[in-house]
């Protein structure tokens, strides 16, 4: 088709039967209001699901699946599509038997029921949760062909929760305290060391996500929210918080979630998620089907250090950049949506996006990161992603140089 701004692209030879013939839904009654007490997406959207990569892990229980970013819009991830990462599967906790204990360097070790937690003042905050390993398979080169797989270890949710500070105040934190160790009730007994300063600053014990109670796979009946910091720290099925004066150096902060550099040394306690963005459409799973002409490029951006006032989009692999249009509310440590509308002339493009956060940090290229970190660090790959768009509208995960 020819590019034609401001004039009709298609002319219709004969009347469209989708209009001139009566469709069944225009004539006959559909399902009633008692059919779906809890509703599900249209059957026409059955392909919009979390997907896993079987070869990544030894089994599907200690494993991960991925948010279908290329099927979503705006900044909210629907609960049914929030990626899952479990270390011993989904704990099906009975809320009546769930307890939250606070012990260690406190004046009074405490036990709270779920009902106790619901009697504290609560807050509502929107935060992204990104796994530190998101995009980890891409360090050595372009590997997975779809933003669901390259960037889908992230979700963005509105949480309702009690500030952890209020619970710690209830137990009375001793003056020599400096760290906390949240622990999960699942069979992996997930633990991470978190500085007390962060715990008292903006951490929440969340009971609700996107308006309803937490989903089982996201920690029902309660999870820790650690804004801007790597997802592994957001302990699910939170059952205990120990207060201490030193970090614990547990498995998930030594064997895992430490960043191995090229010389064999390793960074520990790399908590903050650096600013990052990705174009979700077009992308390998979401080709352009409409041919040349007006085209919407869209994607998401986020930073563990603040908000995202600006995203730039390149059509030529980073040689030249255009400022994108930000849309939707801009919250600290939350996902942001950007759009870049342009007329595609049908020629091949190398699509990139580049986030700039409220601290002025600019998302680096993969080569910039490799220069400092090598290719073995697994975690914290926040580099610029390239999709090669071909003439037929398909997109491929590539690296450029």
């Amino acid at each position: 088709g020819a590019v034609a701004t401001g004039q009709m692209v298609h002319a219709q030879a004969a009347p469209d039967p989708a209009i001139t013939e009566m469709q069944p839904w225009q004539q006959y009654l559909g399902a009633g209001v008692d059919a779906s007490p809890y509703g599900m997406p249209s059957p026409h959207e059955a392909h919009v699901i979390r997907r896993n990569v079987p070869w990544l892990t030894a089994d599907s229980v200690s494993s991960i699946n991925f948010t279908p970013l290329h099927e979503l819009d705006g900044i909210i991830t629907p609960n049914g599509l929030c990626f899952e990462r479990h270390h011993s599967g989904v704990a099906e906790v009975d809320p009546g038997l769930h307890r939250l204990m606070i012990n260690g360097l406190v004046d009074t070790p405490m036990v709270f029921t779920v009902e106790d937690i619901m009697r504290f003042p609560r807050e509502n905050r929107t935060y992204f949760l990104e796994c530190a390993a998101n995009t980890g398979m891409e360090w050595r080169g372009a590997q997975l062909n779809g933003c669901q797989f390259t960037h889908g270890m992230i979700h963005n949710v509105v949480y309702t929760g009690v500030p952890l500070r209020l619970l710690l105040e209830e137990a009375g934190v001793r003056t020599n305290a400096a760290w906390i160790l949240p622990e999960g009730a699942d069979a992996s007994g997930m633990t991470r060391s978190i500085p007390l300063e962060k715990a008292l600053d903006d951490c929440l014990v969340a009971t609700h996500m996107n308006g309803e109670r937490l989903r089982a796979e996201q920690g029902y009946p309660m999870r820790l929210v650690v804004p801007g910091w790597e997802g592994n720290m957001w302990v699910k099925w939170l059952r205990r918080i120990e207060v201490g004066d030193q970090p614990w150096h547990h498995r998930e902060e030594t064997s895992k979630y430490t960043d191995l550099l090229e010389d064999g040394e390793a960074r520990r306690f790399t908590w903050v998620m650096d600013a990052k963005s990705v174009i979700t459409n077009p992308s390998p799973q979401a080709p352009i089907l409409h041919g040349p002409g007006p085209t919407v490029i869209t994607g998401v951006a986020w930073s563990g250090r603040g908000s995202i006032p600006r995203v730039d989009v390149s059509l030529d692999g980073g040689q030249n950049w255009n400022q994108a249009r930000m849309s939707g509310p801009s919250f600290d440590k939350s996902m942001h949506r950007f759009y870049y509308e342009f007329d595609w002339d049908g020629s091949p493009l190398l699509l990139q996006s580049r986030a700039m956060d409220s601290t002025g940090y600019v998302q680096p290229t993969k080569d910039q990161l490799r220069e400092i970190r090598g290719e073995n660090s697994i975690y914290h790959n926040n580099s610029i992603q390239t999709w090669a768009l071909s003439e037929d509208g398909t997109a491929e995960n590539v690296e450029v140089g």
Partner: protein
Amino acid sequence: QEAAAPSREGGFGLGREALPEEVAAWDIDIRPDGEGLPVGSGDVWTGEELFVDYCSACHGDFGEAVGRWPVLAGGFGTLDGEDPVKTIGSYWPYLSTVWDYVHRAMPYGAAQSLSDDEVYAITAYLLYLNEVVDDDFVLSNETFADVEMPNEDAFFMDDRAEVELPLFTQEPCMTDCTDGPVEVTMNAMVLDVTPEEEGAGDDAAEAEEEAAPEDTGP
């Protein structure tokens, strides 16, 4: 941003004091300085037997791993190479982490089913497999402090603030940012390891051996 939810002077009086038995039941964490370790002990040979019974189906008789389950031993000298093998011996900085993790989470599917002495013995065997101790070693709450893990000093605090932030906090270039037009240097479609949307394409399974980078699991 809205104001934070308000504190109350003296607390809300919610929840209740935890009883000592309750804290004891859940307070299972171990620290590098040994804090949390129960009294107990176990030797390498006892550990080997337990390991073969409870662990080797996944981790292999010698911690070498079966299939894609985690490798627990060896990997020395690989950390600065192309394919680092991160094991207890080659990578883990603290012994306490082994005791804590095996006790809290292993065997996979039967967490916290091991007695304290069993955990001491298995941990001793894992140290032995990793050439950190000899075969006559007995690990106990008392010998614990004698063990030094080889790679402890390779870890340092996150230094992104000093090393990376200055580099990456600069006015971004908008035009002619590269030396002329850029070229594609690597394609994901060549690898072909992405799960297919429909059906059970076994491309991915085939590609596993060649393509899956060791230990890139999240």
